[in-house]
């Protein structure tokens, strides 16, 4: 028993395992880089790094073909920690290596936490527009709004995922249940009369859905495009009385309104929103170019930051390499639109941001010590 344990430990602390894991990580990263051309940066992160196994679809069955980022990173972490626990000797000669590896552990843990905690949103503002929410540029939601009170909206937001899984949705604030009748991860909606085949039955009975056609389109992985999902949903009242079916799609900008149970409701499929206790107003977007060219010199958004509790009310200039940091979020200048009248800010939350800094310092100093020791030994030997 002890022998088995010993050989087990020996395996995990061997440099051979380290080298093999490092080599595997290179292959993984290389493949992920190449696949970005097809999948785009987000799908690649999910498929290769934030997973235990890279899955390959073989005739509908996902087969694990290669260890993923969590697998390799986790084993590397075990390998590192185990080697240090078992071979730990605090000497000056080893201090550099120790420090470097400790930094590496922090870096790996930091990347794991980033993978788990980091959120990225987008905030689009037209000139003069004020918004107190940012939007996800990957995820969508079905918003069911109780708009009876003109001063106050009561929102129930249902993640797109629940529609995709066709869960029957029941919520304490809703007097009806929601059932997904059809779901399209990426689809265009068009007026039926424009299409010319009015003979096909309309996808839904209520509101604009009765006049629309849904045209599924292939998923896109391009970085500057997003998938626009659509769904047909049915609302069911008590004892399964149908209120009808609706087409919801992120392409439909206007929410659909109806009355039920003495209240006014609005339905909209929209980009997932993150509301904030403060708002941003775009005062001015500027896009400077070098004289006589189209080469961008600078993008800058002048915004007014105003918190609901009134504690903050100031103007901020967000430009390249100079983001706004507020409330644990980083707002940086990511793009522009509509002839330079719309700004696109990326909003990022990364609670573990400090770890790479610590790791960096430790690894840098560690390597300097380690190689410094080598160098001095070498020089002394040559002198002798």
């Amino acid at each position, binding site marked *: 028993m002890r022998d088995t344990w010993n050989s087990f430990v020996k395996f995990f602390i061997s*440099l051979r395992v380290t080298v093999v894991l490092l080599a595997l*990580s290179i292959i993984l*990263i290389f493949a992920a880089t190449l696949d970005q051309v097809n999948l*785009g940066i987000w799908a690649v992160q999910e498929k290769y790094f934030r997973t235990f196994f890279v899955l390959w679809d073989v005739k509908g069955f996902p087969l694990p073909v290669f260890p993923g980022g969590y697998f390799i990173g986790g084993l590397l972490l075990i390998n590192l920690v185990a080697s240090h626990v078992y071979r730990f000797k605090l000497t000056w000669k080893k201090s550099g290596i120790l420090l470097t590896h400790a930094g590496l552990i922090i870096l790996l843990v930091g990347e794991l936490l980033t993978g788990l905690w980091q959120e990225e949103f987008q905030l689009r503002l037209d000139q003069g527009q004020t918004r107190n929410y940012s939007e996800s540029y990957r995820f969508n939601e079905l918003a069911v709004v109780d708009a009876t009170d003109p001063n106050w909206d009561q929102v129930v937001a249902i993640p797109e995922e629940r529609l995709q899984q066709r869960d029957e949705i029941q919520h304490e604030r809703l007097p009806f249940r929601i059932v997904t009748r059809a779901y399209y991860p990426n689809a265009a909606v068009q007026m039926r009369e424009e299409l010319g085949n009015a003979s096909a039955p309309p996808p839904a009975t209520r509101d604009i859905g009765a006049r629309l056609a849904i045209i599924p389109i292939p998923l896109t992985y391009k970085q500057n495009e997003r998938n626009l999902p659509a769904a047909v949903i049915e609302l069911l009242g008590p004892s399964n009385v149908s209120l009808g079916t609706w087409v919801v799609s992120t392409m439909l900008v206007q929410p659909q309104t109806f009355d039920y149970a003495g209240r006014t409701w609005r339905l909209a499929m929209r980009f997932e929103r993150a509301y904030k206790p403060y708002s941003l107003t775009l005062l001015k977007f500027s896009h400077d170019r070098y004289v006589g060219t189209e080469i961008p010199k600078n993008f800058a958004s002048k915004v007014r930051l105003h918190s609901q509790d009134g504690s903050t009310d100031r103007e901020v200039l967000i430009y*390249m390499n100079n983001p706004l940091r507020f409330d644990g979020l*980083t707002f940086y200048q990511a793009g522009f639109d509509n002839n330079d009248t719309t700004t696109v800010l990326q909003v990022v939350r990364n609670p573990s*941001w400090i770890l*790479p800094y610590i790791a960096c310092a430790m690894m840098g100093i560690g390597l300097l010590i380690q190689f410094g020791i*080598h160098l001095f030994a070498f020089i002394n030997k040559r002198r002798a």
Partner: protein
Amino acid sequence: MKRFLPLAILILGALYLASPLFRKPKSDFNLDGFGRIPVVANGRTKPLDSVARNTLLLLQGRQRIVTPENVSLTPTQWLLDVFFRPELADTYQHFEIVHPGVLDVFGLGIEDGAGKKRFSYRQLIAKLEELDRQASLAESVESPARTSYQRAVVNLRNHVILYQQLKHSLVMPDGSDFLNDLLRLQDNLAAGVEAVRNKESGKDANAELAGFTMNMGSKFLRMEQIGILLAIPPAAGATDATWQKAGQSLLATFQNGSVNVNALTFAGLQHTWKNQQPEQFNTLLAKQRTESERALTAVLKKTDAETLFNKAEPFYTSMSLYVLAFLLAVFSWLKWPAPLQRAAYYLVLLAWVATTVGILMRMWLEGRPPVTNLYSSALFVGWGSVGLCLTLEKIFKNGIGSVAAGLTGFCTLLIAHHLSLSGDTLEMMRAVLDSNFWLATHVVVITIGYSATFLAGFLAIIYVFRGVFTRSLDKATADSLSRMVYGIICFATLFSLIGTILGGIWADQSWGRFWGWDPKENGALIIVIWNAIILHARWGGLARTRGIMALAIFGNIVTSWSWFGTNMLGVGLHSYGFMDQAFVALVIFVATQLILIGLAYLPPEKWRSAPTLK
């Protein structure tokens, strides 16, 4: 003799380096003076000399230009003809076309071209509309997905446009006497405008004068629309005015009541160049220079320096010195080791100093840290690795440092030369990269990491070559090479790791996220991991000398992927240097490295150095 050889070579090398500065074209015209005139192109103030050189490189891949009468022109002379004698310039064969499909568009064969690949505007003129149609067709395809034919037609169309734009930059290139026309306009401006007004409102008018004035107006408009250089500096004292196109400022004649003096000077230069009157030409130029010295002192300081820098061509001359140093050092392993190694060392030092000065000069001109684009990264990778080689040679004194320096110095300058063919290498920084602090830290450190990883690979190549093909690899040399590779890999690990992490910190500072798995980031990470693999393999005894050498050579592949390969994917934040032709070069490079690794693994008894290595 042997004692003085190194010194003699040093002096000859220095003379060779300085020689371009003393070359003077045989001409009565003050060509240098014309080349020093500052203009704004692509957002940067530069001398016309740079415009001429960059355009020639772009159009035909070299600066040398020969007229059909077999007269060699300097780039400035060529540009003068483009501006002022377009009917001659149209016959110069300066459009490089190599794609047979593009030649078919014009019904041309390779034997119609100078050097079988260069053609004149005159040869293309009949089919320009078809070229435009083909280019428009090609442009409907996204640029990474274009075929080589599509890329070639788009390129050629852009080159023809650029040529047309240059022609319209200073004067109207329609063969008329522009100077006389401008003077006549100046003298009759009020009457001319009056005549046009009267004519338009149907009153009695001097029809001839009205026609002339309107004609001039439409010429100015054409120049304003087509011309590309901003050649008219803001008037002295005008604070918020910017540089203007000649056409723009000529159009303003009708508001200001007088023709801009700079525009008039250009017309005068045209007149004197066309009639080949060097004295008048030089007088005009001198007057123009005195004028601009009053208003543009700071600008002229830089553009004059740039002209001198263009003339000195430090990177070009260094290339030859590196080759010579390489040959001397290789030869030293066969004969006269001490003097030849010293001579090689001197030459490397000389070339390195010249490239250092060149890089510093570029930094000053641009007001930027050394690495701002792929071109400058190639210069800097070479600079860094030759610097390391000099240190190695200083320590080990066995010629290996000089051989590696000659090799890497030459290769990187060659790569840089090819990268310079795509236009001005001192381009303006796009907004994302506009941060001198991070350019100076992240980019510089990571580029040094590249150069060290490459150097380790090249040292390993020297090991394999000497071991397999010569008997010169003895135990001592093998040991010192092994030590060099190890030391350089340590250095490379340190710099590529810190450089990569600094990149992450830049990303966090600017975008709020440390790591985004962007292709270039991944490439840098792979270099770090690869170096770590080599170190751990050595520490764990998993690879001995030969294995380490093979791993180090593979490091070349890894680094070239990160440096160029990632840019070819055409995705991600760092894809600032997309290029297609380089793909073939990259594949060939990777193949040669794989062959070298194969050689390294020949059975030891097949190595010619086998007996000496024991």
